[in-house]
């Protein structure tokens, strides 16, 4: 597929996934509400909790991440080339303001982008990456991160994280309501209630897992999209392909201060590599590196 088609296709799929998510959450809210006697109450509660949760992570998110990973702001003259690269690609992307630039002291090769919108964004790079990549490869990586910012991926991922969080909370509610046997002014027969309980329990257990899997699917789609958009910025997909090859060969991808909460933001999984398997893929935040390289070289 050409670059433009990739981008359009990925955007459509992401919106579909988010839509499915919202349906899921409302469904759970509905069932919880049913058992507490009012479905409107259930949905309303779900939405209120979600909004509060969202606001806190939305406005506090970026600075928390930068602190957690011990990133330091990059300055000239030491990081002149890096800063110029970021500013140049911001111009190519048509952003009104270039993202801030941060550096992490770590031999691992990795990078990530933060920020809820282009006006409040930042790109962070490890010193290992700066040492090992040449100019074209660095541009490829920065273009990838710039695309995450431009495509509002970070905001999408925050949204997805909130959905999953809400799903977990509500599933919890649901399970508790069964354990304590509290039901609303139910006019149902005994059999119907039992069916409902079984469905409810199944949902409560599966929902967080499905939610997490959906969130990771969105994350993977967005990675492909960022690869494609980045290639469009540099008009040189080989740059990122070569960079990914080097990143793949990195014997120590572990970034010391990364953890599960921040993993999806990095350009490549910041944890030790393990053999490929279907389950691992399903729950991985990033698509397999070889697939990404293949797609880029095929553009």
């Amino acid at each position, binding site marked *: 597929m050409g670059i433009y088609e990739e981008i359009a296709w990925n955007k459509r799929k992401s919106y579909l996934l988010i839509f499915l998510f919202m349906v899921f959450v409302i469904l759970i809210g509905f069932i919880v509400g049913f058992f507490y006697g009012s479905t409107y109450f259930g949905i309303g509660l779900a939405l209120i909790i979600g909004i509060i949760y969202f606001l806190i992570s939305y406005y506090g998110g970026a600075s928390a991440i930068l602190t957690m990973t011990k990133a330091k702001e990059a300055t000239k003259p030491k990081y002149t080339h890096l800063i110029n*690269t970021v500013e*140049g690609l911001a111009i190519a992307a048509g952003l009104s303001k270039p993202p801030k630039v941060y550096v992490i002291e770590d031999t691992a090769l990795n990078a990530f982008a933060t920020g809820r919108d282009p006006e409040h964004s930042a790109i962070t790079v490890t010193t290992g990456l700066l040492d090992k990549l040449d100019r074209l490869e660095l541009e490829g990586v920065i273009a990838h991160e710039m695309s995450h910012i431009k495509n509002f991926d970070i905001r999408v991922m925050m949204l997805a994280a909130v959905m999953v969080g809400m799903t977990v909370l509500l599933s919890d509610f649901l399970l508790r309501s069964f354990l304590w046997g509290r039901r609303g002014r139910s006019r149902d027969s005994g059999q119907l209630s039992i069916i409902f309980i079984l469905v409810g329990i199944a949902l409560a257990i599966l929902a967080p897992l499905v939610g997490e899997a959906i969130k990771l699917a969105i994350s993977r789609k967005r990675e492909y999209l960022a690869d494609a958009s980045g290639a469009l910025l540099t008009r040189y997909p080989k740059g990122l392909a070569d960079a990914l090859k080097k990143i793949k060969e990195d014997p120590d991808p572990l970034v010391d201060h990364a953890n599960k909460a921040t993993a999806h933001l990095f350009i490549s999984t910041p944890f030790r590599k393990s053999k490929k398997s279907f389950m691992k893929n399903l729950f991985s935040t990033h698509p397999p590196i070889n697939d990404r390289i293949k797609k880029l070289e095929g553009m």
Partner: protein
Amino acid sequence: MVATWLIIVIIAVIVLFVVYIYNSLIKLRVRVKNAWAQIDVQLKRRYDLIPNLVSAVKGYMKHEKGVLEEVTKARTSLMSGSTKEKAKASNQITDALKSIFAVAENYPNLKANENFMQLQEELSGTESKIAYARQFYNDSVMAFNEGIQVFPKNFFAKIFGFHQEDFFGAEEKEKKNVKVEF
């Protein structure tokens, strides 16, 4: 009575449709203007950096007057003119700068000079930014030119006076020189 209401609704729909088309064309054109302004910003930055480069280099490259003059001359013709003229002047400066940096390879003392290295990095960064700004400008022009040519927007484009914009492209001279001889 129903007929009058129907006519009003139809007129309202048409008006909204025209407003929508006009606004979308305006947005595309504004993006083109902003993209052009960004090129100007980077051209100006290069314009400002060049005297610094010339003075840093003059002391070391006493016998390379030709190259330095080339760059200074190209610089003065940069800040005025139409899109096409600016594109031409910009390309001339890029070439002149390339010559300076190529010649500088023969002067190891100059190459090791901190100030020169910083200037080289800044100018190189600015050249990249000019290239990116051009790319974004051309992308915006393409979107706009396409926008005013597709049906049905092309009718309204003519009525409202939207005209195609110029691309910021390669020199005409460069294009003409490609002749294949057998």
